């Protein structure tokens, strides 16, 4: 079988700092990482892989995104494709999924496409379902684990509002994965990193993908970001430090009543 995993290199938003003077984002020094949700998706693909199966990772991004793809190869993917072209810049989720789809069509046959639930920079969770819709294949979102793949069927454990459900889908299918609570992104060992450099790696641009030039990047985007700004700073709160717990609770109740929270 052939698995395609869509991965994105993202700024580590947990390392982002806010300039207290200007209340703006300090982007310098923020490391770029493989989107944690995508790493989970890749690890699920690796988990269910059987002898003879092939895992292709694809990413649309600037040349630096190669690093994220090399990490995927080191983690166990077989082949990587980077989609990089100035024409792809400024893509919204529609244009991103269009671009990834052009690549998927060029790859040809596949059985399962894996995406992360969302990329931690945009948090939109739209690219996966948009790819599935454009390809006309079914989707399962919020997958916590792939339980099994048997014949032409995939069984997955899926998060719901109140717990989970077990879902069965006919292949080909696209799944988007949440990170289950036990998941820690691991770093591959040195040996694997060295081996990764020898695995097949291609870079494709807009000409390689063909398709409609007007559908790429900013041109193909249907939404337009007109302004980016810092959220209003949270008001400084009150921290209660009293001798006794009784006094502290009483103080809190007084404040809550005064501010009409209760």
């Amino acid at each position, binding site marked *: 079988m052939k698995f395609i995993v869509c991965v994105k290199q993202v700024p580590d938003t947990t390392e982002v700092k806010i300039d207290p003077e200007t209340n703006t984002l300090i982007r310098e020094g923020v490391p770029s990482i493989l989107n944690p949700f995508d790493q989970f998706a890749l690890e699920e693909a690796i988990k269910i892989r059987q002898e003879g199966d092939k895992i292709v990772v694809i990413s649309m991004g600037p040349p630096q995104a190669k690093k994220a793809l090399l990490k995927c190869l080191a983690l166990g993917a077989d082949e990587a494709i980077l989609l990089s072209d100035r024409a792809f810049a400024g893509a919204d989720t*529609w244009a991103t999924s269009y671009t990834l789809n052009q690549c998927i069509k060029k790859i040809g046959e596949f059985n399962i496409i894996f995406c992360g639930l969302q990329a931690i920079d945009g948090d939109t969770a739209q690219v996966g379902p948009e790819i599935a*819709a454009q390809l006309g294949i079914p989707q399962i*979102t919020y997958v916590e684990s792939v339980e099994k793949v048997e014949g032409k069927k995939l069984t997955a454990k899926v998060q719901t*509002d109140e717990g989970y*459900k077990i879902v069965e889908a006919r292949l080909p299918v696209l799944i988007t994965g949440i990170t289950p609570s036990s998941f820690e992104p691991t770093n591959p060992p040195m040996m694997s990193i060295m081996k990764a450099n020898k695995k097949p790696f291609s870079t494709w641009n807009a000409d390689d993908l063909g398709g409609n030039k007007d559908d790429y990047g900013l041109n193909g985007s249907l939404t*337009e*970001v007109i302004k980016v700004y810092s959220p209003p700073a949270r008001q400084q709160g009150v921290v209660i430090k009293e001798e006794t717990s009784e006094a*502290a609770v009483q103080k809190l109740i007084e404040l809550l009543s005064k501010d009409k929270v209760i």
Partner: protein
Amino acid sequence: MGAITIQRKKIEDVDLSKFQDVWIVAEIKDSHIRNVSFELLGKAKELAKELNQKTCVLLLGDNVKRFSEEFTRRGADRIYVAEHEALKEYYTGTYSAVIIGVISKYNPNIVLYPATINGRDIAPRIAANLHLGLTADCTGLSIQDGLLLQTRPAFGGNIMADIICRTSRPQMATVRPNVMEQAAIQNNGDAEIIELSIKVDLQGLKVKTKEVINETAAACGIPVCEADTIVSGGRGVGSKENFKLIEDLANVLNAAVGASRAAVDLGWIPKSQQVGQSGNTVSPRLYIACGISGTIQHLVGMKSSDIIIAINKDPEAAIFQFANYGIVGDLCEILPLLTKALEDKLNEN
């Protein structure tokens, strides 16, 4: 690398005027309307008024016509009912096919979906099928120069972005639960009800649900994603037994019980109640964090809550930087006292 300048394509000859009205796609859960639907309606009414258009509700499911009444009372102008027994269970395939058909037929100007698990599953599917722009997880919506101005947090909540959609119609967005005000009951509504005749094909469905496991009901009653008050516990709660302290407080406040990932990992509470980057993003009116340190992965899931109360024995805990009210102290002592005090207070009122 030099700055990239990109020329956006020119928009000409697009007749946008045939797209009218502000629609919401209501979410029905088991046999009740989820509150987020009323929040969407409240916002939709505001937008429709500004545009001088109608507020419409799309009701989808099995035996859902009976819910029209509730939306009528809350001031909807028109209700489209797509009722079919094959829509009893939510499936991306069937639901999206129906909505795509309805949108193509009636040409709304704006369509709002709840940013719930189902809403986030279906909205992008519809957007891609109809080649439409879509903005995820909006926390603010308004009209600017006749266009829908969509405001959403990005970058783990560190920045806000204003987004518009000039060329494609309807303009579509998913909206975070608990952010907008619910449409109030006014009792004098008279909505026009339009019953749609729809075809649903379960045969062609390629996805099937085999089993549903409801952990929340057994463990803690209210799902966090729906609650307007949440009491959350972290590693600092200390043990599964101690989680009773969290539940007691939640009971008094009619709140959901939430948790940090650490508490989920320790098996004290099911994963469905986890708040944070890899759990639920919540923005309740009141969030009480007990024994939670406030790591960034937890904060991104709850920091847009209206009021945050933190209880932690470490005065340096990061959570205090985001709390409107904090108590430094041992939660094992504080929680029982707080529960009792709040109970007395609420009885008094």
